[in-house]
């Protein structure tokens, strides 16, 4: 027999009694959840699905990681294995920078399949990353693949809805709500007890997945390259975000259940919201983001860069910019002819042109990323009402697989390209005496291999303030809605 049945509660129940009510309601809800075999089987299935998705993620990530590491080694060998040639010709041959996979991509692959994995670092131009994995996936692949994030974002809320839709309406239909209220239990305390039970169930649902992810991280993280502590902070943030997301669904389910005519109506309303949140909102928000913050086409983007680059001289010795630079250099060194310069003029010209190009690339690629950021902000803003829109960018950011992480990688790769350009130009400036100058493997070896260090969890948080605010807003809104519904609770 529950504590509730022992004695009626006083009208103004002390906090200790209210806590007893909450505990008793939570215990009763837990018991019912455990007694519902269908729900138990469903939860077991979802947990198995999550663990299976983690295993798939682990295997896939290990494969991709080893592939990219092998590619980086092979490209290094190709680079240092070049025959003797002019250093600028080697800069044209360039290097490839490969994006190392974020360990938490095993839980949330994010946009990884939709961004290139490698970028060619060649002379004179900053390239976009190439080779999107999604291109090779076929049409069916657009229906998604199993990942922990996919299950937690779309299927877990459904489980929470199924656990909670009849919380109040079911009790009303069976007459127990009337009994409960008649012994003096306050609706708010009943709500708190039921919410406690549901949130406990959410923790129980998430725990195996997050313990599995933590164990996978222990094996997966390359501790020379990444901080395990940072990865655990990221995992903790992911856990908090998913708990907030699902807890919001728990409050929503309780609120709708309290207000609905009957359980069926509650279920229909909650399923409609789930459908809108999981399927319609992400697509409609994307359509809106595209319309309000359009991105240029590749042709337009490249034409813009070419237009600005035309103002620099490149290899064109008749360009006014080239002539002006030549004259300024001769004046600076106090000589009348290029041949009399103590350094190689071609190297100086290359360096000058490269530096002019860097500003142009920074402007164009920065503007493109700003457009992506505006689109992401537009998509995340309705996250207060449709929480998947807030959760998804947050999850991707902390998993290190969002477009900002990609931009950080691309920026780092571009910095390495500039190091290569500067190194080869300096070599030409100081060692080339004529146009037949060639450098050998010692220069290729001197130029370091690209090594990317992904930023820490603070970076992810810094670019996720809007989604964080939207997700907190969602949780608060859902809790307030549940409280409002509890105040209007009808016993029959």
């Amino acid at each position: 027999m529950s504590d509730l049945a022992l004695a009626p509660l006083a009208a103004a129940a002390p906090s200790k009694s209210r806590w007893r009510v909450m505990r008793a309601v939570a215990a009763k809800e837990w018991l019912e959840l455990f007694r519902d075999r269908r729900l138990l089987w469903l939860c077991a299935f979802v947990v198995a699905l999550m663990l299976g998705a983690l295993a798939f993620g682990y295997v896939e990530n290990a494969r991709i990681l080893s592939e990219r590491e092998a590619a980086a080694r092979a490209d290094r060998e190709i680079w240092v294995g070049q025959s003797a040639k002019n250093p600028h010709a080697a800069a044209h041959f360039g290097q490839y920078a490969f994006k190392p996979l974020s360990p938490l991509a095993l839980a949330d692959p994010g946009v990884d399949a939709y961004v290139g994995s490698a970028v060619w670092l060649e002379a004179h131009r900053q390239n976009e990353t190439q080779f999107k994995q999604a291109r090779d996936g076929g049409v069916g692949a657009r229906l998604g693949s199993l990942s922990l994030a996919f299950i937690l974002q779309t299927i877990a809320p459904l489980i929470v809805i199924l656990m909670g839709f009849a919380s109040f309406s079911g009790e009303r239909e069976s007459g127990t709500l009337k009994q409960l209220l008649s012994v003096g239990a306050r609706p708010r305390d009943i709500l708190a007890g039921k919410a406690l039970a549901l949130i406990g169930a959410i923790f129980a649902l998430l725990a195996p997945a997050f313990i599995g992810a933590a164990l996978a991280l222990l094996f997966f993280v390359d501790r020379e390259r990444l901080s395990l502590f940072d990865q655990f902070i990221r995992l903790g943030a992911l856990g908090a975000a998913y708990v907030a997301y699902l807890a919001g669904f728990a409050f929503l389910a309780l609120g709708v259940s309290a207000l609905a005519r009957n359980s069926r109506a509650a279920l229909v309303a909650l399923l409609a919201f789930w459908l809108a949140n999981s399927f319609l909102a992400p697509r409609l928000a994307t359509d809106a983001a595209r319309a309000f913050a359009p991105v240029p086409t590749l042709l337009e983007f490249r034409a813009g860069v070419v237009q600005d680059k035309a103002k620099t001289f490149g290899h064109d010795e008749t360009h006014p910019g080239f002539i002006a630079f030549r004259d300024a250099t001769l004046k600076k060194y106090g000589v009348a002819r290029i041949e009399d310069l103590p350094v190689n003029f071609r190297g100086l010209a290359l360096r000058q042109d490269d530096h002019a190009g860097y500003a142009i690339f920074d402007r164009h690629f920065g503007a493109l990323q700003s457009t992506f950021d505006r689109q992401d902000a537009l998509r995340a803003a309705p996250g207060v009402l449709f929480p998947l829109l807030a959760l998804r960018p947050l999850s991707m950011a902390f998993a290190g697989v969002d477009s900002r992480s990609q931009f950080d990688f691309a920026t780092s790769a571009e910095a390495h390209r500039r190091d290569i350009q500067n190194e080869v130009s300096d070599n030409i400036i100081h060692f080339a005496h004529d146009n037949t100058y060639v450098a050998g493997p010692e220069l290729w070896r001197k130029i370091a291999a690209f090594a990317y260090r992904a930023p820490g969890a603070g970076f992810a948080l810094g670019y996720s303030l809007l989604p964080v605010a939207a997700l907190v807003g969602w949780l608060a809104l859902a809790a307030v809605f549940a409280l409002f519904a509890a105040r209007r609770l009808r016993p029959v």
Partner: protein
Amino acid sequence: MSSSFLAGARFEARMMRRDGAVWFALLILAGVALFALAMGTARIAAQQAAIAAARADETQRLSKLQKTLAQLQQGDAQGKPAPEPPPFRDPRNAAFMGGGPAATVAALAPAPLGLVATGQSDLLPPAVRVTTGSKDSFLFADEIDNPANLMSGATDLAFVVVFVYPLVVLAMAFNLLAGEREQGTLGMTLASARRPSASLAGKLAARVAAPIAAMLLAVAAGVWIFAGWERFATPGFAALLFVVLLYGLFWAALAAAVDGLGRGSAFNALTLIGAWVAITMILPAAINSIAAFAHPAPSRIEMVLAARAASTDADKSRDAALARYADEHGGGKPASAAGAQEATLRRLATQEAAFQRVEAIVAEHDAQLARQRDMADRLGYLSPAYLTYAAMADIAGSGEARYRAFLDRIRAFHLDWREFFLSRAKAGASLTAQDYAAMPKFTQADEELVGRPPAGLAGPLIGVALPMLLLAAFGLRGYRRAAPR
């Protein structure tokens, strides 16, 4: 058709006409379908604009080159030669021009019913700039898009049909028996009909006919409004209507089969929602993951590295050849070694080496991807949603079949293009105005593909029809055994 069936259908239709919720659901469904088709129209317009821009760019580049060529020729003819341009800007230089400045556009214009499904069209650019380089240098250029947009997917008709439409069909049909039993009217319904099961089937037909008809009408109206009535004459349009009809019938049959078990409305609702989640979400995701696990997609990076390794090998081998020449000819450099022709030959040798290696690797990769897709296609028979989605993409011309055909055509054209420029470059011949006029052109794949019925739909259609028939038979059996309590 028996009178019981018709009577049941007529009665149910009358009931539905008076139910505001039914009208609301049907209007929402039709509205979403029309919105998706409108979005598809915008997407098609963007693709057409991208192709037009790529072609305009090509025209501009070529006219500029031809103008420079005419100036150079005129200067030579007048005995006042113009300043020699660098080889990469020289319109006479076949080795450089075919590799970029004169590159031609190979385009895949949207198919007549392209507005129906995004398919692969947001990932694979509609226009490719074909050069004499190896495929890795031009075939994998991507259109710019926010990766988060690509991940979210587009609102297209395929999405509405696969995900939203079944929910409306299920909402109409999930509790025909259970609802009547719970209201206490089932006994009367069974008693008043000469053939109770036919009467129940008639009621079910009326319930599912409404969303199916609404969807078919919305599709037809949307195609007419956004693409023009002439699209009705394309074989793809008939196939589209058939796919939509069959998919709706599958969900109706599933609802009847579950309802026929004789359990309550709540059981039916939960079971059908579970089935919907499994068929539209979990199974397709699992199919993709299993196929990717069994036949991992090859790394395109491998292709690039092979091309680079081939270039450095060719470079080294060219150096070795020159060194041998120097040894055999008393240490002197060959006459051409320092000249432009040596640079051209070196460029051609590295390009050729990269081309050969990339061709071999692309063929290997394609074979591996084909294995992955074959497996996914076979497993796809587990999910009618997967089959329907792929069928709609094929009808829209944004599926794998059309892109494979496009890539095959590019492969053949690439060989012609290389032959045209490289034969001249190897012979040391300059490009002339006649050569510019005679450059190979990529024939418009869209013109050939317009009106062609989408191939390979029979398998997916049978894959949806067979389970539908089995479920319908199971559902009918349940209706025959229906009891008031």
